[in-house]
């Protein structure tokens, strides 16, 4: 019999810690915005038998691209597999794509559309500045952004203190449609981004990071699919400088060619780029963020589909 009270205290501490790690893990995915989207997309994927085209990428595609609309336009089955913050981490996104492959017939996927906002350089000096038109957020947690990263398995996803004293966790209802689209009307979700939109085109290093993040992952999981890297449409009052965008596209394409050239199966790899059309109509935007609302999403999706036909990735109906 151990008589030392300290030993019992340590045992109680270890047991409490392990118990909270377990409980917080269950609580986290149901009450985190990002976690809810992730989990609901996995569930929706499992309800689809075959997918022809897949959208991956970040929050721009979560809010502002519609797989259902693309399916209507093309007659194919599209699925929107984009995740906020591009899946929190590369490993998380890879696990998500693996879930996707396991739940549908990956061989049927003919096109993977990568829609990432990482084409723009985030200037360190400006990254914390708030856009003038954006009301100051009361708190990120209030918006449901309490889960932007995965916890290691040995740490609780949420602190016990936060659980007890913080605002009630937001439990998200069904916010993802059968094809992975965000249901804009389901709840007041259309206010995700709290920061200004970067306007400077990405540096060579930014392009490297973007390609390193996406191309190996998509190509390894869908080796036969045509890959399209789209530069997402965005709200901007100023017209895009064609010289700057041309220079960026040239650098992007040369990096893509270099990447393809370095692959052992380079002959069979098809990667295209699309520069989407921008809009200067603020009524297309979510109330406080740079992503599009349901109307803007429709406009962007239609215009993107036209571009996919233009570059020959899709044939139209």
């Amino acid at each position, binding site marked *: 019999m151990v008589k030392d009270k*300290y030993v019992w*205290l*340590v045992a109680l*501490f270890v047991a*409490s*810690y392990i118990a*909270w790690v377990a409980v*917080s893990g269950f609580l*986290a995915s149901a009450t985190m915005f990002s976690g809810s989207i992730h989990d609901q997309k996995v569930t929706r994927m499992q309800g689809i038998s075959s997918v022809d085209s897949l959208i991956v990428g970040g929050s721009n595609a979560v809010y502002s691209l519609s797989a259902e609309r693309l399916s209507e336009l093309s007659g194919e089955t599209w699925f929107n597999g984009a995740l906020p913050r591009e899946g929190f981490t590369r*490993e*998380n996104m*890879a*696990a998500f794509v*693996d879930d996707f492959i396991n739940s549908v017939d990956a061989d049927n996927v003919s096109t993977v559309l990568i829609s990432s906002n990482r084409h723009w350089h985030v200037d*360190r*000096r400006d*990254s*914390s*500045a*708030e856009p003038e038109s954006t009301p*100051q*957020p009361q*708190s*990120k*947690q209030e918006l449901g952004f*309490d*889960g*932007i*990263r*995965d*916890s*290691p*398995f*040995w*740490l*609780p*996803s*949420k*602190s*016990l*203190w*936060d659980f007890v*004293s*913080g605002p009630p966790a937001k439990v998200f209802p069904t916010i993802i449609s059968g094809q992975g689209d965000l249901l804009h009307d389901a709840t007041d979700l259309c206010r995700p981004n709290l920061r200004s939109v970067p306007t400077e085109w990405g540096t060579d290093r930014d392009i490297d990071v973007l390609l390193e993040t996406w191309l190996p992952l998509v190509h390894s999981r869908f080796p036969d699919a045509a890959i399209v890297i789209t530069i997402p449409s965005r709200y901007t009052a100023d017209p895009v400088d064609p010289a700057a965008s041309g220079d960026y596209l040239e650098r992007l394409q040369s990096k893509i060619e270099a990447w393809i050239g370095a692959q052992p199966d380079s002959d069979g790899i098809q990667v295209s780029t699309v520069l989407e059309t921008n809009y200067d109509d603020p009524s297309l935007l979510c109330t406080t963020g740079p992503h599009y609302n349901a109307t803007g999403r429709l406009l962007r999706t239609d215009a993107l589909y036209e571009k996919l036909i233009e570059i020959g990735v899709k044939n139209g109906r």
Partner: protein
Amino acid sequence: MAKSLVDRAVPRFGFVAQFVVVVLAGFTLTALTAISNRNSSTLWIDVVHVVMPALASVLVIGLVRSGVLPPLATRAFAYVIFFSVAALTATGFMSVMNGLAVSSPNPFLYGYSFYSASLAYLVLMEGRSASFVRTFDIANPLMLATGPLAISVASMRHWSIRGRLHYFFPFFLVGVFFFIVLGLGLGPALAIKEQLNLVSGLVFGFVFELFIYVNFAGLSLIVYAVAGILGIRVPLNFKQPFSASNILDFWKGWHLSLSSLLKELFYKPIRARWGTYAAVMVTYLASASWHGMTLNFAIWGFLHGAVFVVSIALLKRKHTIWAFIIFPPTVVIARMIFGTPSFDSLIAIVNHVPTLEDAKLAALAVFDWPTETHIALALSIALVVVEFAFRRTPLLIGRNYKFLRVRVTQIVLMAAIVLFTTGRIGDVIAAYGQR
């Protein structure tokens, strides 16, 4: 009472046993993480991380033991090993060590700065009598992953496992509290470095100093405790550095394994020839080069060296209050310089005239930190204040965290760990480790 198997094994196989235990634990953790992330690619990297340092240690020890090198060349060899880190960062093979770039970009150079420094010390101090057994602590993954250097390591033959647990477990708990509750909590605050202006820079310098302290001291305490429980005594790498009233006292408690090494390699020989002030300056510049061959580190080393020299002069003249006044700003400004990613960024900070808007932006950023970060900041500041304010009381005068190891504070620490730990903020990183 018959001794347990562990008690009997420690004197004979202590170094080997703790190496094996640490390697097995490391592989288990990697495997569990790989299963959790469904990614097994990290497993082979672990093998490289274990094999390369061990191989390098065996080669270096073998070379000096062989007697091929005469005594003077052996000494020179120690300096070559030490400065190889500077050469590797200057040529771009290794990243700098600013507490932010934490991972080694090259798996074959994992932990190189740590085991090369330990080897330099071993070669200098022991020369031909260096033992191959030292490979097991110099190349110990636990040390390489966290940062303390493997110098002055000894087997504790006289302590039973029960005695070791009783003494070392409270250190473990203090380390976990530092690293997890305070370190992870402070993580999000470091993003303020992105605002390149002096106001935010100073806030960053202050918070980053706290972060490096709790992160590195936390891990060092965990290593100290785990090694102690396994029967190996490693030096206490941090000794309440803020129980100090000047910069000299501060360095008596900060990263002591590196300080001991620098003392033998640079301070002692140079002081004997050119005096204390030159020895101090060279030692800090050598330390700067070990962190990375950049102008930022050179300025950081020069600043610390200069203030150290000035403080010696002030203390000699009994101006203790002035030695105290220059101490906190030096630590904060030096840390800002240390953590700023490039010289250009540093120039941008210095050239930017502080405005009210800068202060407003900094305040907004601070306000926007998660609750856990505010709690961690408050607790970290409280820790520093207690270390300083009660430094002459019996519980703190020994500078070995006794005030955090007494029963009542241990209960508070346990409660804090259960209450405030979360993995959703901050990164589980060793700020000084792995490079």
